[in-house]
């Protein structure tokens, strides 16, 4: 029986899946963060840009679809977070806007700002986008300052439902070390994934050895941040929802969520192991290039687990520390049953979409990218 509750949970699963895929696809950003660090010569930089440049639209599209899916399934989040944490989202958007044009513009004659400026834009987006997205997701656990009052619609002079309770409009998230740690963790992860992807996708020994070095550094950074974030997460108080929909603080809520949902815990652990194995094999075995294909499912699983403990098991996934009862839960922020049901039917097309993307991905990447290929005109 497909109930309203089931549909809410199903859509949170899809949001988690899109979140997981998005973080995996942030290898594009991570790779771009390495344009100047790992790419020592012009040729190497071109290789990096042309490698991530053939995938960037998938990342971008996943981000847009993540936003669209959130809008369709949990519109109160869309309304509260985007309208409230205004500056955070605007900053994220601006970095992506610069990225979108930089590939096409950087190598073209007449681009006004010069090739390196656009590459700097790519690098900036490469670092800032994962950092900011991670920081924003950190607030799923630490909470934000907002008030939701649906009855406000009846106030003709001031009908706004969601209001941010401070003038910082989201920037205050950086005052909480957990959020920043979360952001830095996502940034280090995306650079790790970027290095793994480039090692797999580009056939160039010199660049590969530079990338292996970057891989180790970023992965160590990631592990440090992971330990910090997990320690905080498992020891912090969380935002629980009781049977009447009342939000209460619960000690060790997220630890409880992992223990009460062993499948989710297993996803996190298996994901982490796959990631570690993927990195370790790539770092220590010179001829091993497929680390990304272990790290990719690992990342998707681990990120899904994080989203799941934020929203499942009677947890408020977007808490308000200003007014606890304004916190967003799956039940109070979701679309109507009819819309969720309709969109669930639409979602059945997702496996087909993933299949054709995977098919053409393989077709396009059967041969690794080489400097010879960059001598043709089919490049950025």
């Amino acid at each position, binding site marked *: 029986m497909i109930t309203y509750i089931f549909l809410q949970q199903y859509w949170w699963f899809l949001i988690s899946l899109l979140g997981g895929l998005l973080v995996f696809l942030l290898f594009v950003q991570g790779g771009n963060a390495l344009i100047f660090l790992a790419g020592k010569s012009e040729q190497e930089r071109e290789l990096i840009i042309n490698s991530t440049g*053939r*995938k960037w639209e998938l990342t*971008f*599209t996943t981000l*847009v*679809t993540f*936003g*669209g*899916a959130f*809008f*369709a*399934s949990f*519109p109160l989040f*869309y*309304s*509260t*977070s*985007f*309208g*409230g944490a*205004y500056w955070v989202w*605007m900053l994220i958007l*601006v970095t992506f*806007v*610069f990225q*979108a*044009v930089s*590939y*096409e*513009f950087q190598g*073209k004659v*007449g*681009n*006004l*700002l010069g090739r390196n400026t656009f590459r700097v834009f790519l690098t900036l987006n490469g670092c800032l986008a994962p950092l900011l997205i991670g920081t924003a997701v950190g607030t799923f656990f630490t909470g934000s300052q907002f008030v939701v009052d*649906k*009855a406000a*619609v*009846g106030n*003709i*002079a*001031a*009908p*706004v*439902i*969601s209001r*941010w309770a401070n003038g910082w*409009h989201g920037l205050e998230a950086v005052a909480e070390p957990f959020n920043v740690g979360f952001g830095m963790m996502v940034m280090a992860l995306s650079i790790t994934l970027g290095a793994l992807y480039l090692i797999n996708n580009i056939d160039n020994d010199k660049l590969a050895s530079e990338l292996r070095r970057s891989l180790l550094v970023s992965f160590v950074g990631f592990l440090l941040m992971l330990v910090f974030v997990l320690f905080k997460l498992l020891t912090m108080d969380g935002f629980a929802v009781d049977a009447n929909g009342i939000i209460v603080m619960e000690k060790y809520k997220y630890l409880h969520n992992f223990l009460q949902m062993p499948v989710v815990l297993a996803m996190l652990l298996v994901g982490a192991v796959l990631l570690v194995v993927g990195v370790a094999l790539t770092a220590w075995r010179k001829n091993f290039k497929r680390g990304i294909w272990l790290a990719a499912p690992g990342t998707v699983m681990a990120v899904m687990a994080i989203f799941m403990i934020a929203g499942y098991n009677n947890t408020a996934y977007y808490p308000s520390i200003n007014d606890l009862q304004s916190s967003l839960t799956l039940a109070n922020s979701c*679309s*109507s049953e*009819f*819309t969720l049901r309709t969109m669930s039917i*639409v979602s059945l*097309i997702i496996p087909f979409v993933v299949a054709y993307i995977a098919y*053409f991905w393989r*077709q*396009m990447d*059967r*041969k690794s990218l080489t400097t010879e290929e960059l001598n043709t005109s*089919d490049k950025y």
Partner: protein
Amino acid sequence: MVETALVDWSRLQFAMTAGYHWLFVPLTLGLAVIMAVMETIYVVKGDEFWKQTAKFWMKLFGINFAVGIATGIILEFEFGTNFSNYSWFVGDIFGAPLAIEGILAFFMEATFFAVMFFGWEKVSKRTHLVATWLTGIGAAISAIWILVANSWMQHPVGMEFNPDTVRHEMVDFWALVLNPVAISKFFHSVFSGWMTGSIFAIGISCWYLIKKREVRFALASIRVAAIVGIVGTFAVMLSGDSSAVHVAEYQPMKLAAAEGLENGGQRAPFSIVPGVEVPGVLSVLATHDINGYVPGINNLLNGYTTPQGEVVPSAEEKIERGRLAIEAFGDYRKLSGSDPAAAAEARKVLDENVEYFGYGYIDSKQELVPPVWLVYWAFRVMIGLGGALLLLMCVVLWAEYKKSLASMTWLQWAALLSIPLVYVAGQAGWIVAEVGRQPWVIEGLLPVKAAVSSVSVAAVQTTFFIFVAIFTLFLAIELRILINAIKKGPEIENY
């Protein structure tokens, strides 16, 4: 209190972003078809010339495509950042087409765009051709869903207001998708993109003719582009005709503003320019009947009775009933926990007046009139330029058929100078559609002032100027790169 300045700046930011977006999208829609046709000719004939011709237009397509994506993502998120109340109040309906657009269209575009640009040596000729077509089809599918969303704002259907969740909720998905406004808007917008792509390609090709360069390439491009453009323009005219009927039926104030019609009636005249009118033509356009009744601005504000006896209430009465609905909504919320009988009574009043809910936020009836001069002139600019551009394309095609285009310098110059005009026509079209529906973000249900986010005016001003600067910079760079690429020309030997 929602400040007027906040409403204005939020609107301005959205309008500016949409305006920029609509500079890049029509070219994407049109060039996609033109280059796909060219590549099809290449695959059928096996002539390398057509491959290089297609590749040249693809190069320009790629430069333009990126900026379209950049402006598009901002638009999507601005619904949340700047119109958060809207996002909740109708998100149950409006979010769905946006999500479907992502799943169905954007992934298709993203995947096949990469195959089209980098797959020449990696996939077979036929697969490549399919990828090129699918890139364009993806763009058109994207247009379907965003226009379904937009049309729902112009003519909301398939939903019910739920006072418990305080939002409109979808009850009929197919009503949303098959909204007649969406269908005509889709064809009107997409085919106007064909016009843009065609005029762009014809204009640039004529520049080569003026310069007496790449003559074979230029003439071949003109043949394809002119045919695509003429087909597109006729489709624009047909869909424009049904659009007019829909506007007359569902958004009569927009039509009255577009015509500057103060007092309407039967056999309403069509205004060519102020003071020059053709009797009865507006009735024909709006109702397909010379005796059809078209209300003017004053009729709409003061209320009127149609010849069929339908009584349309005055603006004051609508505002009054809207206030009743909002008040009843408040009572229902207060009483539903404590006094079910009184709550049911309040609910009844709400249901009786809910179709005027949005009018409850309106302070005076003058707010219900959009800026008439802007809509009036934008409408004339759109139609006038559309007609002139159709004529131009027909003359160009005829001249090419007669083998005399290469020597008709005046016509080449006219075509080149038409490129900005097709953009002006496209922008004017959106001004008619969007300014014409003011003050409504959703016709009759939610005015813009009740839709905005609660952020400071200074914050919106800041992001507005940041985006203006970024988009203007991108536009300047895009133009410069395009001009350089055009000067370099296609990589065709023995032209």
